[in-house]
C-alpha cells in the first residue's frame, strides 16, 4: 500500500460504475474498491476539497477515533488522526491521503467526493474512508482495521460521524464609549482632587488607567462598589451609584444607603425617631462624578433629574476602555469631583436637585470618606 504523493488530478477514481465487494488487502486497488463500495451505500456528495479541511472531532466518547485534522498543502492532502488508546489518546501521525472525484475528468479541488488514507501501526493497518454529509457539516469516517500481528484478532470495520470544530474567534465588537453630558450639568457642589492624591511621588509617568484604578480603590474602600465609566474630551468620567445621605453629607448605613426611597425606621434611635415622627422626613440623595480630563470645563445650565443621575450608573461602561486608559496623565490633566445632591421634600415627592448644596464639595467627599481614602493612598 502506498501513500506516495501524486498530483491530485492523477488520483481520480472512477466510482460510478464499479460494484465490486470489499476486500481487506490494502493495496491501492483495494483502497479504490473499498471506497467504491462505501460510496455506493449512500448518495454521493460532491464537495470542494477545501470542505474536508479542518479539525473534526468525534462526539462519540467510546469510538476509536477521537479527531482528524485534514490539511491541503498545495497538491498534498494530509490527514492526522488522534485515536483512543487503552489509557490515553494516541497520535497516529500525519499521512498522505487520496481524494476521489465522481469521474475521471473531475477537478478534485471543486468536486471531491471522498478521501482515503491508510495508517500503518505496529499491530494493524487502518484504512480510513471519509465523506461529507449533504450539508457539509459532518464528516463520515469508516475505519477498516486489519490486524497484522498474527494475534488472531478479527479485522473489523467501524464508522463514526465527526463534527467540525468551530474556532470560536469572536469578532471584537467596535468600542462604543458612552459620552458623559458635556459640559457637565450644573452640580450641587464640586471639589478639585489634588494630583498628589492620584499620582504617587515616586512614579514618573502615569496613565489614566492608573488614575482610574486609584479612584476605584478609594471608592471601594468607601463602599461604592458600583460605578460607571464615561468618555469626556481627552479623559473619562467616573460616576458613583446614587446613595442616600444625611443632612450633614454622611452616607446612610446600608441598606438604606442604596435605597431610592426613604424607608421606615428599622432600628430605634431617639433622634431618628423624633425626626421621623415630627418632621416631613425628607430624603437626601447624592451622586458623585469624578471627571478626569485635560480640558478646562465649566458646567452647563442644564438641570439634571434624580432619575437621570441614577441612570448614569447603568448607562456607562463597567470598566475604563483601553483607548482612554492608555492616555498619559500629564500635568495638563485635572480631576474634579462633581456632587449632584437631590432632596425629596417628603417621602413620595419628586426629588429635586439642590443647587447649590448646603455643603461644599469637599464636605461631601470628607463625609463620604472619599477624601481621606484618596489622601491615604500611597
Amino acid at each position, binding site marked *: 500500500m502506498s501513500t506516495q504523493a501524486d498530483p491530485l488530478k492523477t488520483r481520480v477514481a472512477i466510482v460510478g460504475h464499479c460494484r465490486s465487494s470489499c476486500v481487506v488487502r490494502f493495496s491501492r486497488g483495494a483502497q479504490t474498491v473499498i471506497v467504491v463500495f462505501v460510496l455506493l451505500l449512500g448518495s454521493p456528495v460532491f464537495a470542494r476539497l477545501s470542505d474536508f479541511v479542518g479539525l473534526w472531532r468525534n462526539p462519540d466518547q467510546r469510538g476509536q477515533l477521537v479527531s482528524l485534522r485534514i490539511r491541503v498543502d498545495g497538491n498534498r492532502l494530509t490527514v492526522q488522526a488522534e485515536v483512543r488508546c487503552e489509557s490515553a489518546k494516541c497520535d497516529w501521525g500525519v499521512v498522505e491521503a487520496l481524494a476521489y472525484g465522481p469521474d475521471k475528468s473531475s477537478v478534485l479541488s471543486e468536486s471531491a467526493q471522498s478521501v482515503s488514507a491508510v495508517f500503518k501501526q505496529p499491530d494493524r493497518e487502518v484504512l480510513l474512508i471519509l465523506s461529507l454529509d449533504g450539508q457539509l457539516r459532518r464528516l463520515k469516517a469508516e475505519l477498516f482495521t486489519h490486524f497484522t500481528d498474527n494475534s488472531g484478532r478479527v479485522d473489523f470495520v467501524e464508522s463514526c460521524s465527526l463534527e467540525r470544530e468551530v474556532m470560536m474567534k469572536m469578532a471584537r465588537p467596535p468600542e462604543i464609549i458612552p459620552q458623559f453630558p458635556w459640559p457637565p450639568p450644573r452640580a450641587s457642589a464640586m471639589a478639585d482632587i489634588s494630583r498628589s492624591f492620584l499620582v504617587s511621588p515616586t512614579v514618573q509617568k502615569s496613565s489614566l488607567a492608573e488614575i482610574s484604578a486609584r479612584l476605584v480603590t478609594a471608592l471601594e474602600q468607601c463602599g461604592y462598589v458600583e460605578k460607571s465609566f464615561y468618555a469626556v474630551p481627552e479623559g473619562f468620567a467616573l460616576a458613583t451609584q446614587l446613595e442616600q445621605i444625611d443632612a450633614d453629607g454622611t452616607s446612610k448605613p446600608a441598606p438604606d444607603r442604596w435605597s431610592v426611597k426613604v424607608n421606615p425606621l428599622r432600628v430605634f434611635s431617639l433622634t431618628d425617631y423624633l425626626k*421621623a415622627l415630627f*418632621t*416631613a422626613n425628607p430624603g437626601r440623595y447624592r451622586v458623585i462624578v469624578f471627571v478626569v480630563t485635560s480640558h478646562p470645563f465649566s458646567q452647563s445650565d442644564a438641570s439634571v433629574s434624580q432619575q437621570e443621575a441614577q441612570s448614569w450608573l447603568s448607562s456607562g461602561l463597567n470598566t475604563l476602555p483601553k483607548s482612554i486608559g492608555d492616555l498619559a496623565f500629564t500635568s495638563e490633566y485635572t480631576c474634579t469631583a462633581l456632587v449632584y445632591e437631590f432632596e425629596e421634600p417628603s417621602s*413620595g*415627592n419628586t426629588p429635586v436637585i439642590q443647587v447649590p448644596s448646603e455643603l461644599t464639595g469637599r464636605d461631601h467627599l470628607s463625609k463620604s470618606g472619599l477624601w481621606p481614602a484618596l489622601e491615604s493612598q500611597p
Partner: protein
Amino acid sequence: MMLPMSACKKRLTILWFVGGGFLCFIVIVQTIFNHYGNRASDAWGWLLPTFMPTLSLIASVWSMDVLGKSAAIESVDRFVFWLAFALSLAYLLVVAMTILLQPFVSSSAEGYISVMNRSSLFLGPFQGVVGASLGVFFVKKQSEGADQNGR
C-alpha cells in the same frame, strides 16, 4: 365597694383631657413641621372623631354641674369606675400608638394616613365600648338628674 362620684368623674375627666391634649399636641407639632404634607386635613379628620365626642360629653356634663342642673349622685361602684378608667386609658393608648408607631410603619404622608384609616377598623368598635362605659358616669347621671328635676 363604692367610690365618691365626684372623685371618679374628675379622674376620668383628667384622663381624657390629658390624653386628648397629648394627642392633639403631637399632631399639632406634626402639622407645623409638615409631617403630613398636603394630607394634614386627613390626619385631623381622623384624629378629632377619636376623642372629641367624649371630651364634648364630659365638658357638657361639667357645665351642667356648674349650672346646678344635674343632681348629685354621691357614690359609684368601684368596679364600674375602674372598668371605665381602664377602657379609657387603653383606648387612648391605642389611638396614641397609631400615631407614635408611624415612623416604623411608613415614611410618607400617604403611608401615615393609610395607617390611620386602617386603625378605624378596630378603633370604631373600641370607641363604642368605651363610650358605653363612660355613659354610666356622665349620660346616666345626667338623665337621672333630669328625672329628679322633672318631679
